[in-house]
């Protein structure tokens, strides 16, 4: 093949690639853009643009059902994210640091399964077990605690994957060096390992927090009277048809996420810069 023909082919591939990526991102973001735009639409017919308004946001402020749901969801998400990171870190350590132990295959399977297992299965089976336990012992009451148990199962699986990926790229020699220098296992963990995986723990926390905040199916199975999370409120409204208040909620979530992402990437960039400076300072001959 002549060089010119090959270069022409490369050019074509490059433009095809850009087009494919552009179309893909368009596909991923169109619904989000549509939600934001229509939240300012002054029309109760959702698809006809009638001019700009903020009335849906004002209506939101007095929407007790939704606000109560949001508060409950935030509480559950906070507890879920924290406990998921703790259990997920333990599981990730077991998988990465201890390559051989009895039942490791079963263990790895159980940790990974909730990632793909349809949520209706997890929700129904956990609920039926909890109902049996409640009949025998009188607790737990269906509500916040039972929703948390379900979310934790899912969150733990995701947290494990995130922490595990970080642990695998970790330089184990640093931990061994600390141990050779006389650090106790616990000291090695919180002085050496923990700072190195802190960023992964943070992203696992954020991921499980949003997973919990968003979950419909597990919450529907595991919630009891008076424990209606925000997604359950939104879902019951969305089922009935298009609802402008849902658009307004969506826009606020998009806003919160955007702020969160900007702040997080700024913090990470600052930390990386600091680390680069530290390395440079350490390398400088004194």
């Amino acid at each position, binding site marked *: 093949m002549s060089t010119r023909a090959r270069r022409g082919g490369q050019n074509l591939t490059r433009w095809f690639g*850009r087009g494919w990526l552009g179309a893909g991102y368009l596909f991923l973001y169109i619904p989000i853009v549509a939600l934001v735009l229509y939240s300012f639409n002054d029309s109760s017919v959702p698809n006809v643009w009638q001019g700009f308004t903020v009335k849906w946001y004002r209506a939101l402020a007095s929407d007790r059902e939704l606000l109560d749901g949001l508060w409950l969801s935030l509480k559950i998400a906070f507890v879920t994210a924290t406990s998921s990171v703790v259990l997920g870190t333990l599981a990730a350590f077991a998988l990465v640091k201890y390559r051989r132990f009895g039942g490791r295959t079963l263990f790895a399977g159980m940790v990974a399964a909730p990632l793909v297992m349809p949520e209706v299965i997890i929700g129904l089976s956990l609920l039926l077990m909890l109902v049996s336990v409640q009949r025998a012992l009188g607790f737990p009451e269906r509500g916040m605690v039972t929703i948390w148990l379900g979310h934790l199962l899912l969150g733990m699986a995701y947290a494990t994957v995130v922490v595990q990926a970080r642990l*695998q790229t970790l330089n184990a020699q640093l931990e061994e060096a600390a141990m050779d220098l006389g650090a106790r296992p*616990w000291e090695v963990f919180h002085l050496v390992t923990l700072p190195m995986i802190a960023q992964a723990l943070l992203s696992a926390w954020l991921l499980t927090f949003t997973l919990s905040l*968003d979950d419909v199916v597990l919450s529907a199975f595991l919630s009891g009277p008076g424990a209606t999370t925000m997604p359950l409120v939104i879902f019951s409204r*969305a089922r009935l048809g298009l609802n402008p208040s849902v658009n307004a909620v969506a826009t606020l979530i998009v806003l919160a996420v955007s702020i*969160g992402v900007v702040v997080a990437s700024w913090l990470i960039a600052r930390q990386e810069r600091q680390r680069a400076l530290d390395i440079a300072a350490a390398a400088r001959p004194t």
Partner: protein
Amino acid sequence: MTKPSLRGRLRRGRAAVIAIPTLWLLVFFMLPFLVVMKISVSEMDGATFQDLVRLQDGSIAFNLKFANYLLLVQDDLYFSTYLSSLKYAAVTTVACLFIGYPFAYFMARARPTVQPALLMLVMLPFWTSFLLRVYAWKGLLTENGWAANAIDALGLDHVLAAVGLIPAPGQLMNTPFSLVLGMTYTYLPFMILPLYSNLSKMDLRLLEAAADLGATAWVAFWTVTVPLSRAGIIAGSMLVFIPCVGEYVIPELLGGPQTQMIGRTLWDEFFSNNDWPMACAVTVAMVLLIIVPLAVFSRYQAESTERRP
């Protein structure tokens, strides 16, 4: 080597690190399945279930009810629902692979400086509510929605109707098309991410070697790149296929009367009909349906954890 006391402490720490998550998963993940299997063969006795095994006049009596399973096998409705769940999950997986493979490929071959930003843009929708994004498609696909207008203007609705994905041109919502679109949209990142992580680790010198040996870019792609990304393809496909089989929210919001999915059947048996044993039988059958893909997935997961960087 280390002192015995330290070794003892390490061993105790190791036991705790393994035991805590194991116990947790056994109690809250495995045990519930046993409960479901038990209830699926139980007789409802008012609000409670009869015991499976009873001592009757000094002999042990088993009280198992397989009627639910018989119904599952004999009733055409259940059977066709299982089949159509598998069908829609498979179509979605193929659609995700078709869109996602080139997407991940071009991401992995983009300039290294822009790759983190491209990756971030794929992950970002994860952080905005999945429920709300699915709901947004409802607005986009109903009459006069943006997507509906664009599809009609391009004449694509005639193609979709000819393929059988929509009943008639101009009618997009509550059809197999809107269901598959919603599931493809939701699960596309789950296909892209494992493929990207696989493709970005590929040794590009292999392609140079292929070119030196006379392979065109196209031939090298199919004979080198695709086979090397097999693990990514399997992982991505399982991450899409398995949850799609049991999907509930998307069929409920975007599906229609034609698009029966097993997740919805389970939900209705449980919440509308209050038939717990039947819901459990449906669940057990669903688990059987996904057990092979699940095994493939967990083997892949295990392999990827064994791999040392």
